[in-house]
């Protein structure tokens, strides 16, 4: 069964573990193996950290997560409403040097997910969004 859910919350790192667990629990409920769901959990955690640090300068700001499952793909979009990122980062294909700009976190997201992209501005016309997809179907048919 296909479904979509939107979670709304504020960038407070003390609640990020609740969000991560919610996402991974939803993925496991749709048939994703636990060890694969932990990859999704880390990718989502990096996206949350990214928003807290880069979009809101380590302060509180609104975040939304769109979770969706279409019977095959499990997708997560993390939307912030923060300042536009001037360097317009993308998902690096190779491990970047650590310059403190979150490049390594984006690289990790790209490696752990089947699809990942950074969208500027976000689909809602503001801020930045990170879209991540994991193909659950490959595990269901295995």
């Amino acid at each position, binding site marked *: 069964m296909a479904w979509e859910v939107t979670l709304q919350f504020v960038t407070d790192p*003390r609640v990020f*573990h609740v969000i991560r667990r919610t996402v991974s629990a939803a993925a496991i409920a749709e048939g994703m193996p636990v060890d694969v769901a932990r990859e999704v959990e880390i990718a989502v955690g990096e996206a949350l950290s990214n928003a807290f640090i880069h979009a809101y300068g380590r302060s509180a700001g609104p975040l939304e997560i769109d979770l969706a499952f279409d019977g095959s793909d499990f997708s997560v979009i993390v939307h912030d409403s923060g300042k536009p990122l001037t360097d317009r980062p993308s998902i690096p294909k190779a491990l970047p040097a650590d310059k403190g700009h979150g490049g390594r976190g984006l690289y990790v997201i790209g490696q752990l997910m089947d699809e990942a992209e950074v969208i500027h501005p976000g689909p809602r016309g503001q801020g930045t969004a990170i879209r991540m997809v994991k193909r659950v179907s490959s595990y269901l048919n295995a």
Partner: protein
Amino acid sequence: MEKVSPVSIFTCRIQEEPGAVVLHLNGEIDLAAAPLLDVELGRGLERSQTVIIDFSEVVYCDMSGVRALERFHAALGHRGRDLIVVSSGIIRRLFALVELDKRITMADTPEGARAFLPHAGSRLMDSGEG
């Protein structure tokens, strides 16, 4: 010896043994836990020539934990001390993705880490990253 973070998702237990101090981490290491991790790792800085950090009971770690490990590794390197990290599964995969395993000695289990101790005849990676 055990401390609980304000959000109760991370703990650290310190175990002294001949030739090494072992920091057993437990729980989730993220942005919220990283400041406490820095404090806990600092407690192991001067205790022994070799520090073993055991991630066996860590169920979540992201780049916040990687950066804390890198800071600690550099601090140990300045003191001429050695670091061994115990990890497996998704945590080891994360460390490999950011090539931490090329800079820090990794073991699969605490027992495997002890095989690297000097009296066991093995050599550690150069920890002097600076």
